[in-house]
């Protein structure tokens, strides 16, 4: 039906986007793994970070790739403060209540963006965004390659951080056994906020990588939060490897789905995967336990 080279091109393009999905999902899965919070505000934080990257570019002329460390650092501070000041204070009780608290936060963030920035689409146009490399079957532009490469590097760095540093070990300890971690002298509240901060920083980095290809609107967070949930559920809640592989699968599924079902209907593949995984394999590909 379709030429093999077209499908191959679609798979390659999907892989490039999928790496960024993986980075966004990594933040979500980290927050879930440590705090057991499903952060509904993840997408709106991505949206805010995309606005930050856009305004740094539009007003300050700073290239989003140069601004990446700055935006990630700001996002970390925002996430840290949000956990310490709002979420830890309000999130008691059942997990649905915490999900609702993060929904409330996302409503506030999203409408604040709508109020201040209006719903106009904004896109960063880089001077070199049509340059790239020709693979024969498809042509990859710089923003795609940068998004793919940087996402993988950041994922690797994060893994290194979790495996090698004291803070990383403390985070893993808290994720495994809260009470035990507190008993050996780990400041659990601090680690919670650090984890939330790192999760948000992932989104800050992803925002800089997305902003040259995705136009920013206040509503874009909703699109990405659905994708990130799908990736995390598919990969297994709390699993790093799962987020990476899940991200790539979703990126490819979206791209190939678009090829077969058309641009509009192709988007259904994401929600369908989400529903099917939740129903039939709620632990995902790499998750250990869920409910």
């Amino acid at each position: 039906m379709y030429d093999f080279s077209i499908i191959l091109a679609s798979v390659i393009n999907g892989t490039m986007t999928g790496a960024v999905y993986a980075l966004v999902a990594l933040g979500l899965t980290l927050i879930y793994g440590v705090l057991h919070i499903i952060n509904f505000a993840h997408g709106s934080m991505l949206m805010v970070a995309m606005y930050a990257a856009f305004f740094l570019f539009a007003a300050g002329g700073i290239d989003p790739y140069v601004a990446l460390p700055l935006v990630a650092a700001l996002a970390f501070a925002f996430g840290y403060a949000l956990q310490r000041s709002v979420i830890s204070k309000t999130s008691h009780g059942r997990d649905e209540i915490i999900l609702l608290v993060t929904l409330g936060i996302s409503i506030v963030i999203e409408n604040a963006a709508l109020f201040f920035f209006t719903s106009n689409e904004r896109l960063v146009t880089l001077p070199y965004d049509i340059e790239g490399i020709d693979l024969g079957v498809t042509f990859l532009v710089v923003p795609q390659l940068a998004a793919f490469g940087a996402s993988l590097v950041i994922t690797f760095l994060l893994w290194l951080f979790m495996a090698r540093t004291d803070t990383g070990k403390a985070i893993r300890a808290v994720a495994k056994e809260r009470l035990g971690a507190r008993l050996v002298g780990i400041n659990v509240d601090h680690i919670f906020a650090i984890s939330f901060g790192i999760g948000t920083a992932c989104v800050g980095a992803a925002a800089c990588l997305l902003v040259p290809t995705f136009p920013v609107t206040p509503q874009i967070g909703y699109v990405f939060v659905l994708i990130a949930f799908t990736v995390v559920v598919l990969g297994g809640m709390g699993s790093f490897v799962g987020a990476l592989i899940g991200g790539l699968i979703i990126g490819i599924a979206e791209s190939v789905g678009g090829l077969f079902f058309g641009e509009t209907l192709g988007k259904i593949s994401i929600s369908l995967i989400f529903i099917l995984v939740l129903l039939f394999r709620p632990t995902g590909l790499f998750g250990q336990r869920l409910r």
Partner: protein
Amino acid sequence: MTGTMGWRIFWLVLGALAIVAPWIITSGFWINFLILTLFLAFLGQGWNIMGGYGGQFSFGHAVFFGTGAYIQAILQSKFGWNPWLTLWFAMAGGVLVAAFIGYLSFRYGLRGSYFALITLAFAEAFRVLATAAEGVTEGGKGILIALNQDPERSFAMMQFATGTGYYYFILILTVLSLVVVWAMERSRFGAQLVAVRENEDAAEAIGVNAFRVKMGAICLSGAMTALGGVFYVQKFLLMDPNIAYGPTKSVEALVVPIIGGMGTVFGPLLGSAFLHTMGEITKEATQFFWQDRPGLDLIFYGVILVLVLAFLPNGLVGLIKGQWRGRRQGRAAERKKAVA
């Protein structure tokens, strides 16, 4: 709440005021304000049956709203059916979708946040379908319902020339929804539903069929929410995939009962009245600085939602009854002291 004499008089006066409101209020703006307040209370009541009484939090209630609205719009515009007839099909459609989602989710044991997420995914899947199925739904540009030109037939076509007609229409729907939920609360089914919310395993242990009870709740909720979609179509005479299945209606449906008081008969009405009033005040107060900038009232909704979740587990109804977190914890602490 109707227990004491004072409350009974209060509700009687409120009811009388609701009936004569269109004679007192002549401004179209305020009639519209009342219509939207009642409409949101009605939507919220649909969510309240399943979320408030049943403890099954849905993040995608738009899936029922949109289905009802689309069936009402399509049968009228494409087949020329009478709106009073299509209404029943719209409600049946809502029940069908509810039964489908409920069967899958409850059969496979989804609870808590996972149930919330799957309803969200269903709403999104329906939104994509409605956008893609252009032959049926006109896709992204949406369906327009022909305006009824004949004033004699305004009731027959369920289209009213003035706000007063729509006001009584939604007032009747809201009162019916209050009666249904009031009766449900006092029924065997209602008691079983609350038992499932409080502890599903314990409820099963004493012989409640949790699956059937939850199915009943989601179907009733789906029917009521679809009827909300019917009202929306008749009032605004248009429907598109984002209004139908977008996140806005899902969020509105859950915010109102949570703020008003989940699992209470009057919670959704109270929540809707409170939010709309405060939203309007915020708009008026800031009109001088920012004219017609969207978003401000919703920022306010979000803040109130977080505050209520943090401090008022039983919403505004709980506040009226004098239950808030600080006080309850205080009592618990006193009890502990007494035990010690």
